[in-house]
């Protein structure tokens, strides 16, 4: 940058805070006015961001693309329990273009487990197939099941974080042998704690190979050796869900001998449905909140611009005095733009600070979850700076056009 330009920039940047501090109350009001707009925008964004994070927590990853098949107990005597062979038939009927993976599950509740005198009632999940689509938490200890593990009848298991904590109280669990419903079971690995809904499902769980799990089941949880509590087919595309459901229903009715005139013997669940509904809700709320925030920001910019314009009118004599002593159009423009940028920056900081405070106090009362990430923090300050520059540009030009003679000759 040429020396002269740098010098003049420096001089005018120095004058800007002097001019701002000369009218502290008016400057404070302008900062508050702009800050209020930034606050509404930042708070709205934080609330939407919090809502998105909640949806993210509830989302099921690949499981959201799953067709989950369970017995239809509402159909009374028509209800059937699916068999291991059903899943192979279903995968074949749907074809490799539609299916990404499949798993069969058998589930027992409140199964007593123990290790060296410590007891814990846990869920037991027997699994065969691609279990990792659902239990996709990282491993905290040991190793996950290989395909050969889940197809075997070995007495091995993976523990959820909570189950491991209850049985081992923070000590290493991998490589130990626990007793589940009186039968021994070697702990091959422990899942890490996650914050998604799926990870909470497996938090207090003991996952074992499908054929080994029957050993741990209580008599009340009885299932035949080839029967599954639930079958899961992970689809490649969620849009295939409806079509896959029709094919699965037709295939299973044929296999279990239930005609189309009867209620279906199975229920077909879409795990992604709740999050889809929430996303629609979020989009609606986002549009509403951003509209309100946009109007607020516009009002704040107009208020700032109005105050800036009025202040410029009041300062025209001072500006003319500056011009008399050699300030050029560019000098005044730089000084006034700098003033607007400084006020805008302070407005942005004030706005984001107010939004943080408001979120802190209102979140527990109003039950929303506001999330402020670094992008939002920096973005709010930038919004303040941009708004200040935009709102102050007209008055800066007005000031720069002031003729020097105005100061003394009107």
């Amino acid at each position, binding site marked *: 940058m040429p020396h002269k330009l740098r010098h003049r920039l420096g001089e005018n940047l120095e004058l800007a805070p002097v001019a701002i501090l000369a009218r502290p109350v008016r400057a404070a009001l302008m900062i508050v006015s702009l800050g209020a707009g930034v606050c509404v925008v930042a708070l709205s964004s934080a609330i939407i961001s919090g809502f998105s994070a909640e949806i993210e927590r509830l989302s099921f990853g690949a499981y959201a693309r799953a067709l989950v098949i369970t017995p239809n107990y509402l159909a009374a005597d028509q209800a059937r329990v699916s068999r291991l062979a059903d899943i192979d038939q279903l995968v074949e009927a749907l074809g490799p273009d539609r299916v990404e993976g499949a798993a069969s599950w058998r589930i027992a509740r409140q199964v007593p487990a123990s290790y060296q005198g410590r007891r814990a009632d846990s869920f037991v999940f027997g699994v065969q197939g691609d279990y990792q689509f659902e239990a996709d938490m990282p491993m905290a200890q040991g190793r996950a099941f290989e395909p050969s593990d889940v197809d075997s009848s070995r007495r091995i298991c993976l523990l959820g974080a909570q189950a491991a904590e209850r049985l081992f109280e923070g000590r290493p669990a991998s490589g130990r042998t626990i007793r589940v419903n009186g039968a021994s079971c070697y702990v091959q690995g422990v899942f890490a704690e996650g914050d998604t809904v799926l990870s909470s499902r497996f938090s207090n769980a003991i996952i074992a190979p499908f054929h080994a799990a029957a050993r741990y089941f209580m008599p009340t949880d009885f299932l035949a050796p080839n029967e599954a509590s639930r079958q899961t087919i992970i689809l490649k595309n969620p849009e295939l869900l409806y079509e896959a459901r029709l094919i699965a229903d037709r295939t299973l009715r044929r296999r279990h001998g239930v005609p189309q005139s009867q209620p279906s013997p199975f229920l077909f669940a879409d795990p992604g449905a709740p999050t889809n509904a929430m996303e629609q809700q979020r989009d609606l709320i986002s549009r509403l909140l951003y509209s309100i925030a946009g109007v607020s920001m516009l009002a704040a910019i107009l208020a700032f611009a109005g105050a800036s314009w009025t202040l410029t009118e009041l300062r025209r004599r001072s500006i003319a*005095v500056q011009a008399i*002593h050699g300030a050029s159009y560019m000098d005044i423009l730089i000084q006034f733009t700098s003033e607007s940028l400084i006020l805008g920056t302070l407005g942005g900081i004030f706005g984001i600070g107010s939004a943080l405070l408001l979120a802190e106090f209102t979140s527990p009362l109003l039950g929303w979850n506001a999330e402020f990430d670094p992008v939002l923090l920096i973005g709010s300050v930038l919004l303040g700076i941009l708004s200040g520059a935009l709102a102050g540009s007209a008055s800066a030009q007005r000031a720069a056009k002031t003729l020097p003679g105005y100061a003394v000759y009107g």
Partner: protein
Amino acid sequence: MAGAITVSHWVIQLENLLHYYGKQRTSPSVQFRARQEFRNSEITVLVGESGSGKSTLLKVLGGLDCAGSGTLKVRWDICNDPGKTSRDAIERSLPHTHHDLAHYRRHRVAFLFQDGGLIEEFSVLQNVLLPLRYAEIPRHLRRARCEQALERVGLKDKIGKRLNQLSGGERHRVAMARTIARKAAIVICDEPTAALDRDNAILVRDILRDEAKRGACVFIATHDDRLIDHQFADNIIDIDQGVASLRAHPPPSETARPN
């Protein structure tokens, strides 16, 4: 720099200068038909009735307004402009764009007005400092110059005060300090002693004389009889209904300037 000049030479040349208000150039608001040079260390007083055109001529001389026609040349080699060193830059007709006029004011002219022309919201120091900022005076010299100037007008102890903490006379002295601190080649004063008490008027007169001694070319529009005197002023320009003419000098014995 202007303060270092000791040799007598012209600073401003006027010839057939006409100024018009508005776009219709029917009759000039002020006219200076003769050819006249104004030299360094000279004091020129402009005298005339109210509305005769004194302030208009001052505005043109000070670069606050453009002349309509004629010649107004400024000697440029005595200003603080390191970029202007060639012979071509020694003489220059006063430019007509706002940008060039601002450049001229920034580097050549200091002003003193009847009402002071101070910025109310600034402190005493900021007011005195203002022209030095635009004149690109090095930062390390500015503070010392301000203090010297304020000391000259007896306000050094008020350097950090705001203007609303000063009396009317003190405010005028701040304006004087600003004029002194600038150390300009041309000093333009419009009614500098009007509405001042006797002591302050004498102070103004002394300061303007000091500015001339320093080498400045001083122009004063005034109604003050104490300044309309060839013992004080080197040139007196009478302006009557816009027509400016140089008053003849009295015999040399009557114009000895008192120390």
